């Protein structure tokens, strides 16, 4: 489905995400990488409380916002593709040590060469994937 370019809310929303990352780093020296926080929250007893608090806040705030604004939710996305995508995202972020937030928002802010390489890698493969699925195979809308 086509979407509108929304530069103002994009910039403002991005600024809130940046502020959240700075707050977590300033408050306790932690990196706001969602994949790492989720993995550690599931696997480590140590530091589980703050990680669950962070994830709880994220889910509650976004849910309330989406419910309040009545944003439509996607439905009917093919289940096999959804499962494959989830497994790849979980596998890839563990092997590559981070996702859009950890490498993108925090890693780039720490001037990490590794994070820059990771961001370029997942952007390139994401663009290639959408190109193949939409324009070569016509497999997904």
């Amino acid at each position, binding site marked *: 489905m086509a979407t509108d370019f929304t530069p103002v809310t994009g910039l403002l929303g991005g600024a809130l995400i940046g*502020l*959240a990352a700075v707050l977590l780093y300033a408050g306790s020296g932690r990196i706001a990488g969602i994949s790492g926080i989720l993995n550690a929250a599931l696997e480590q007893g140590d530091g589980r409380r703050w990680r669950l608090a962070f994830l*709880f806040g*994220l889910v509650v705030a976004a849910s309330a916002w989406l419910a309040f604004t009545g944003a439509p939710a996607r439905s009917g996305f093919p289940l096999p593709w959804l499962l494959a995508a*989830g497994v790849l*995202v979980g596998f890839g972020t563990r*092997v590559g*040590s981070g996702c859009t937030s950890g490498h993108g928002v925090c890693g780039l802010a720490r001037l990490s060469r590794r994070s820059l390489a990771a961001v370029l890698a*997942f952007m390139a493969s994401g663009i290639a994937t959408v190109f193949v699925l939409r324009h070569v195979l016509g497999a997904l809308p």
Partner: protein
Amino acid sequence: MSRWATALLAGLLFGCGLALSGMTDPDKVLNFLDVGGRWDPTLALVLGGALAISLPGFAWLQRRGRAFDGSALPPSPAARVDARLLGGSALFGIGWGIAGYCPGPALANLAHADEALVFVLALVAGSQLARLAIRPA
């Protein structure tokens, strides 16, 4: 402020930012990646807006040397770019390009889109698979 209260506030801000920016809409993410098609450049501005705050913020803390609760900041990032980093990130990008979800927006959709729970469970399974398949770095 205690560590968990700071983390809760950061999570709330993060969730608001994701929803306001529109990144909770997987179609918006897929259209960002569809450079030659229905391109929606919004995601680039979301990253730009985030870095406009996080770049100076992190630099300020780096100069300060410690977090406000006295914790040490993480050591300087390693410089070595290896096959694991690139391969893992490339696989992540494929999954991202299929469904339009990275981990944050998937969690943000848990109470909103029915498909998000399925995606998150698959994500956790994929992460556990990777944990079994690789040795710790």
